[in-house]
């Protein structure tokens, strides 16, 4: 809770542009257009490794962290089970769809298996949320962590559905219209489309009654009840929406790796999602994606870097940990908070120099 509280305080300096936030701030922002174009033409620039291992993975992890951002940033609830929900959806795709483990997979076509997986994972997450909303603050974290840990150990020990510690391998990916949608370029565009959809949906809903009500619940749940809102119903609904987003990311993840095993839903991986969201910043939907990019870049390249300076390459988590410490120490609202404050400090200088002339207008 204190994370979100501090974040709120930090947002204040940027309020001069508040009215613009009512609509779509991206439309007037040239940087956003540049990022959009780069993302769209990425297959022309990047090779398969970068396209999938860096950018698609970033977008998938970012979407998982986006579901946490929705809960923590708007509704003030820190959930550690977002990766568990994604993992549950991934398992369900493997169980209902086609995989190398024919004794387990039911062999449904992907267009039946995926909606089933999304529905079941959303129900699972909503049920977990209904338990978690009975508590506040640290107890919410504990309950969701307990759900995540329980799911991890359950998948390890259950062979009938989850195939124990070996997991489910060679999960089939969609082929239709003559396209292998798991080939690097088509898969990148699927991931990009889902991530963009989730990002804009969260951005849109944040200004709709549902999103405003969540922010009201975050700021003062008691007053929300005194305004006629059923606070717990809103919290559970937030879990339902966040679960659906996490489940979408989970489906993409199982298509990405073509397998799912307990290692993918470990407690450590659950905490990674929290780190991604906090490092990026949970005050705005873009934060989780920035956090995911930093996380993926560190995870991929820190190894080489560490070896180069004479350390054990497996210590890449040390770098992530130090980065996490630095971020929460200097900027409680993550990288986007740093960025906003830097912009803020630049603006008066620019206004003085340019006589108030502000670029595009």
């Amino acid at each position: 809770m204190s994370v979100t509280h501090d974040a709120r305080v930090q947002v204040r300096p940027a309020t001069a542009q508040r009215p613009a936030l009512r609509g779509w701030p991206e439309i007037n922002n040239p940087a956003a257009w540049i990022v959009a174009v780069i993302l769209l033409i990425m297959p022309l620039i990047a090779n398969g490794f970068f396209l999938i291992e860096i950018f698609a993975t970033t977008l998938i992890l970012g979407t998982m962290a986006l579901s946490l951002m929705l809960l923590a940033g708007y509704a003030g609830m820190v959930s550690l089970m977002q990766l568990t929900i994604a993992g549950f959806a991934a398992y369900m795709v493997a169980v209902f769809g086609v995989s190398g483990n024919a004794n387990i997979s039911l062999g449904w076509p992907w267009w039946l298996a995926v909606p089933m997986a999304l529905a079941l994972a959303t129900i699972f997450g909503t049920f977990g949320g209904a338990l978690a909303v009975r508590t506040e603050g640290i107890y919410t974290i504990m309950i969701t962590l307990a759900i995540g840990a329980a799911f991890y150990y359950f998948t390890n020990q259950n062979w009938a559905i989850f195939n124990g510690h070996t997991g489910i391998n060679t999960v089939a990916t969609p082929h239709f219209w003559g396209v292998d949608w798991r080939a690097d370029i088509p898969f990148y565009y699927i991931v990009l489309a889902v991530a963009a959809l989730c990002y804009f949906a969260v951005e849109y809903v944040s200004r709709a009654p549902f999103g405003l009500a969540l922010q009201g619940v975050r700021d003062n749940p008691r007053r929300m009840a005194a305004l006629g809102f059923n606070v717990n119903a809103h919290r559970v609904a937030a879990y339902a929406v966040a679960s659906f987003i996490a489940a979408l990311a989970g489906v993409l993840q199982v298509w990405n790796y073509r397998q799912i095993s307990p290692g993918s839903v470990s407690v450590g991986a659950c905490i990674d999602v929290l780190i991604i969201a906090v490092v990026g910043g949970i005050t705005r939907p873009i934060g989780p994606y920035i956090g995911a990019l930093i996380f993926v870049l560190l995870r991929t390249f820190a190894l080489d870097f560490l070896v180069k300076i004479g350390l054990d390459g497996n210590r890449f988590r040390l770098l992530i940990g130090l980065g996490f410490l630095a971020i929460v120490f200097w900027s409680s609202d993550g990288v986007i908070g740093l960025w906003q404050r830097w912009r803020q400090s630049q603006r008066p200088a620019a206004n003085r120099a340019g006589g108030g002339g502000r670029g595009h207008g």
Partner: protein
Amino acid sequence: MDSVAQRLSAVGAGAALELRGVTRLFGALAALTDVTITVRPGERRAVLGSNGAGKTTLFNCITGDFPPSSGTIRFFGEDVTHFPPYERIRRGLRRTYQISALFPGLTVQDNVYLACRGVSRGRFSFLRPGQNDALMHAADNLVQAVHLAGVKDQPVAELAHGQQRQLEIALALAGAPRFVLFDEPAAGLSPTERQELVEILTSLPAHIGYIIIEHDMDVALRVVESVTMMHNGRIFKEGLPQEIESDPEVQELYLGGGHE
């Protein structure tokens, strides 16, 4: 202002708010003991009493923030004793808080919009309000009514104390209130702001009744027609403002020697 008798005869027998034997315990401490109050629709009443007399606990029991330990609460004839707060609010009950309970991360406009949305349908709507959204207009009107139109796009965290108190009132007047509980609305206000507060309260439509907790007698006695005096969690005395003001027991207990 009409006399109490005129008001009472005009509204008939149905009570807006009826508390019977309401008791609220906090552990062994009885914050309220056997409180029985009847307030008629449109009636405006002050609740006076020293700190710890149980005034705010009374409000919390009426709104359901803390349910009473025993006793019944009826709101326009309906037994709401076991209703959650939001069900009572949707029936036309409103309250303000002694310490402003606002949404500091949202703008003034969004605060008021939430208040309007809370007592109407579409609380879970995923669609942004359009240009001609009726509730947006309602929110605009309320923002103007409490003189906050100039700061409506500012986050509440940036408002001055007096503006926050005005917003606190606006949130309680959203939708179609039938009865409002004002918990020390003048706390921390300047004399000018107190005058504005009195104007807001006296200009409320006559069908909206309220109970006001207020230590400032200049404010309290100008905006009410009846007074309930509380002491140690019990009803101590009820009457017209001038009766209470001149009652020697009340003076002894509450106004003290320093009032003259």
